[in-house]
């Protein structure tokens, strides 16, 4: 599956010098591997780390928000959960990247419960989408062929009107007040492919080739 690397690489381009960024588990975690080393980006983990580094082979007392042994960058610091979520809810986190089960035309997302089936819980996701300055969804465009970008989320919401950008292996979609704008398409797909794989109405005016994709 090359797809997740395509998504992670594209999202890394969105991060700006000086940004404080929270990366969720799954595809978002891989974004770290593609960050331009020229940019000073600080990664935050909601369990209480500012400046978390790569995961570590050896088991340690320092774990990331996925519970995996990790490291801390020079200049990093440890904080408690109240301070951590103060930063998150207080708008001090510039970008949050997280996965989703569904996203819709209003920029709402669902990610924490499939009633009667799977209930992982919302963890820090509801606070992250509420408080972060920009929310980027990193996910596969479809799930077993079924669209995940919908007119309206069917699953219980994680956040109402919180998403700013959706990045999939097929496309980059910007959420604006008038709806979803298809702004970039991966060269392996046509605009029609994207439209077919999407239930939501896409606004299509200026579509570019997906940035960061070497042809």
């Amino acid at each position, binding site marked *: 599956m090359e797809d997740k690397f395509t998504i992670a690489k594209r999202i890394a381009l969105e991060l700006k010098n000086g940004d404080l960024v929270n990366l969720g588990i799954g595809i978002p975690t891989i974004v770290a591997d593609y960050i331009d080393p020229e940019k000073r980006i600080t990664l935050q983990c909601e369990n209480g780390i500012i400046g978390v580094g790569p995961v570590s082979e050896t088991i340690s*007392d320092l774990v990331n928000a996925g519970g995996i042994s990790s490291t801390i960058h020079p200049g990093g610091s440890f904080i408690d*959960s109240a301070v951590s979520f103060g930063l998150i809810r207080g708008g001090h986190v510039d970008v949050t990247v997280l996965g989703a089960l569904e996203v819709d035309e209003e920029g709402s997302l669902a990610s924490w419960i499939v009633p009667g089936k*799977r209930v992982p819980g*919302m963890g820090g996701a509801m606070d992250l989408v509420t408080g972060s300055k920009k929310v980027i969804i990193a996910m596969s465009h479809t799930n077993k062929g079924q669209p995940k970008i919908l007119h309206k989320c069917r699953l219980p919401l994680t956040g109402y009107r919180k998403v700013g950008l959706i990045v999939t292996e097929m496309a980059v979609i910007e959420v604006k007040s008038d709806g979803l704008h298809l702004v970039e398409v991966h060269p392996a797909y046509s605009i029609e492919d994207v439209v077919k794989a999407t239930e939501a109405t896409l606004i299509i005016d200026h579509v570019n080739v997906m940035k960061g994709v070497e042809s």
Partner: protein
Amino acid sequence: MKAFIKKAEFKQFLKDGITIMIGGFLSNGAPERLIDAILETDVKDLTIICNDGGFETSGSGKLIVAGRVKHLIASHIGTNPTVGTLMQEGKMKVTLVPQGTLVEQIRADGAGLGGVLTPTGLSTMVETGKQIIEVKGIRYLLEEPLHADMALIGGAVADQYGNLRYIKSMRNFNPIMATAADIVIVDPREIVDTIDPEQVITSYPLIDYILEVEN
């Protein structure tokens, strides 16, 4: 701080049906020796307030697997499959709370506040049954304080006075929970002579008992 105690003394504080806060995030910073001590008793019908359901072999997860928990209040339960099973079978009640709200509810109790107003969870299932308060035209959920009979604190280095500092990411919920329970008991990694006054994270008046560290 009242005294350094042994496991046997700790067990005398336990009773069926009490509410216990357990520090740690996915077991990182969890008070494992105190949890093990509970398992050595017959105590049951516990209400556990913890960030998550831990794992089946560590953290709050051990109590859940052993059937000691009647009600779990947590933000995330995806790492311990037993939680989902017991929940579906109706054998354990689970209340899911956004992580930032959970820690703020605990802090509110410890800090004598009647509650906090948060935007997190608005227009989601989390809203259900809660007061909505408008401040300057913006809507917030009123989240009420959470109190426990007992808080079990881990991930710490204690000094002879009962002051604590925390090791790396094990800080998380621990210092906040230490403010919000009738009895606060610490399972430290290490006991040192003194901690520098500027480096103390939890001051000794908050602590009741510290479990001795055997060499």
